């Protein structure tokens, strides 16, 4: 071993030692990584690249993609914002896009998203989507102008062809999306996305020489603070949304005693006709009174035994209010098995198979839910009953498709975390649209009634509280395929309800 130099006592001497013993030339890796722009620029390109990829019908992936794109974008644009006017504008657009993303992501952690989608017209939703896409396009323009400004500053030849190509490609994608192009255009769209991603890769080298002229801004907000704030709002806000705003508002209160003297008499008449007492006990007074003068009654009881909600009981009761004209008041009463840790929404879907049989409603569906809590019974009106057309994705066998398209009623409600003996009912009144047909009770009439009043009834049950984006049972049902079961909802086909005299 050769003779050692004197020891290095202090920090400064050690610094000198380090500087003095470095080789004259660094490795290629070091010279490649030590630049004022590479990291910031790559973050921006990552944000753009991720933003270009689309995950249709994968909302959760879409949320993760949006979070990654926003986070990378915020970090990258934050560093370059002071370099020139265009980069500063890019930064402002990034902030706007991130706030937009957060608002959308947080809204999706609540049931308000569903409600808002129903409330806003398709035109407004379309305009919102367009504005979002135009913000992204404007940011690409800022990127192009910012790069040109850096190249000019460095005295280099202006070359923004890669980013101009990217702007063109995104504009084409936007037009194809606006046209809702399908078939052959989907292939074109895919090719354009690949080309756009390639141009993003080309962009990574566009500042290789001129980029050394970039002077990044001192960061006012550190990467940790920026990401912490962004993901803090996203995660905590989403948790609050999922935990506290993913249920329908239910006004639980003790059932009020009957206020009218005649209610007891109507009750007696219904019991005499064979109305099950347990169901009758759950009816609101106005629904009992609506059965005043009933002349007949049909009743059917069924149990559901299979995995989810094993033991779910359904009782379908049709009260004949009048023979001529023929008017029925129908009750669908269900009793749920006890469950722990209930979250979100459930819904009862009424889907008449033969619509013509159900067109003449004399009373819109409504109902209420009852639960037992600490030995007391509480009731709340079903807060949401909607009717609307929807088309469901189905499995096609030749000319037959299992997918449904048509009108359906959804009675949606929520239950508290802890409950016992939960049950509820939905009721509606219907008049027979073909009173001329003689319903002489016999086999032919049975078939006829069967075909006309054959009514599909489904129970959509939320099986997992922590799903994202938050969806109501109704929204899930409308967006899922026939009888599908997601990890968050189960669709239970209750026995088809039909009414005919025995």
């Amino acid at each position, binding site marked *: 071993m050769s003779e050692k130099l004197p020891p290095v006592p202090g920090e400064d001497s050690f610094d000198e030692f*380090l500087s003095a013993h470095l080789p*004259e030339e*660094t490795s290629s890796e070091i010279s490649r990584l030590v630049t004022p722009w590479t990291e910031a620029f790559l973050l921006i390109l990552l944000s753009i690249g991720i933003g270009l990829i689309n995950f249709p019908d994968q909302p959760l992936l879409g949320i993760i993609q949006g979070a990654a794109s926003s986070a990378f974008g915020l970090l990258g644009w*934050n560093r370059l914002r002071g370099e020139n006017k265009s980069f500063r504008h890019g930064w402002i657009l990034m902030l706007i896009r991130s706030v937009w993303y957060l608002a959308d992501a947080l809204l999706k952690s609540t049931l308000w998203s569903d409600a808002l989608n129903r409330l806003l017209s398709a035109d407004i939703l379309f305009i919102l989507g367009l504005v979002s896409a135009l913000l992204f396009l404007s940011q690409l323009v800022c990127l192009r102008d910012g790069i040109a400004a850096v190249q000019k500053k460095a005295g280099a030849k202006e070359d923004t062809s890669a980013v101009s190509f990217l702007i063109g490609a995104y504009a084409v994608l936007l037009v194809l999306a606006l046209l809702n192009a399908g078939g052959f255009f989907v292939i074109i769209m895919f090719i354009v996305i690949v080309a756009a991603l390639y141009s993003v890769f080309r962009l990574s080298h566009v500042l290789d020489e001129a980029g050394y002229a970039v002077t*990044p801004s001192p960061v006012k907000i550190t990467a940790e603070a920026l990401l912490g704030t962004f993901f803090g709002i996203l995660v905590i806000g989403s948790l609050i949304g999922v935990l506290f705003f993913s249920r329908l508002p239910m006004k639980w209160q003790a059932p009020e005693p009957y206020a009218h003297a005649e209610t007891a008499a109507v009750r007696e008449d219904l019991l005499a006709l064979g109305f099950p007492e347990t169901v009758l006990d759950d009816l609101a007074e106005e629904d009992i009174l609506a059965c005043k003068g009933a002349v007949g009654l049909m009743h059917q009881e069924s149990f559901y035994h299979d995995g989810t909600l094993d033991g779910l009981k359904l009782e379908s009761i049709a009260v004949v209010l009048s023979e001529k004209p023929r008017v029925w008041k129908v009750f669908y009463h269900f009793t749920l098995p006890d469950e722990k840790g209930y979250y979100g929404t459930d819904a009862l879907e009424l889907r008449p198979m033969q619509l013509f049989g159900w067109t003449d409603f004399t009373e819109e569906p409504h109902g209420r839910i009852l639960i037992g809590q600490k030995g007391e019974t509480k009731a709340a009106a079903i807060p949401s009953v909607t009717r609307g057309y929807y088309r469901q994705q189905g499995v096609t066998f030749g000319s037959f498709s299992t997918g449904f398209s048509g009108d359906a009623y959804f009675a949606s409600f929520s239950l508290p975390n802890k409950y016992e003996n939960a049950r509820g009912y939905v009721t509606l009144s219907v008049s027979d649209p073909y009173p001329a047909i003689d319903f002489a009770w016999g086999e032919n009439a049975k078939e006829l009634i069967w075909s006309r009043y054959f009514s599909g009834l489904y129970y959509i049950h939320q099986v997992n509280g922590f799903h994202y984006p938050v969806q109501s049972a109704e929204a899930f049902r409308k967006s899922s395929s026939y009888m599908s079961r997601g990890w968050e909802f189960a669709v239970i086909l209750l026995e088809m309800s039909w009414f005919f005299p025995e």
Partner: protein
Amino acid sequence: MAARDIIEKLKNRDESGMEELLQHYGPLMRYVIRPFLSDERDREEVLQNAALKVWQSIGRFDAEKGSWTSWLTAVARNAALDMARAEKRRETDELPEDAHDPAPTPEETALRKERQEALLRALETLSSGDRVLFYRKYYYRQPTAQIAAELGATERSVEGRLYRIRQKLKELLKGEMS
């Protein structure tokens, strides 16, 4: 224009190569020179000196031994270091301008090489990010504020990281320094 074309021109003593060198790699050389000198005129002078040095020593550049930007960075850095040292000498008036450092003895050269290798070995134990940070500070001599801005961090966090890197290297190089 590709670096290969510029190198080719310079090797062929084509003077247009110098113009292209400054056009394409002027920003890189200015970036390397800036931290060493505060005066803009000095920086421009060093840039010219470095370009001249490239012209003179292009024959020594071997693409197989290292990258073009590494070599160019080294040339610009050495030119800047020379100017900074000369400035310091002028300011402190320690040595006459024409004084030269005595040539190192063979033992000193061997010891220097040994320490250099030890330092490189120690640097290999750092993470890629820390290694880059180290080079920014000790090779490129970039001020903490510049490093912080370019890495999107605060000066305080950069200083903290540098402190930890120094402590680790001190530990690893204890034998070399005792």
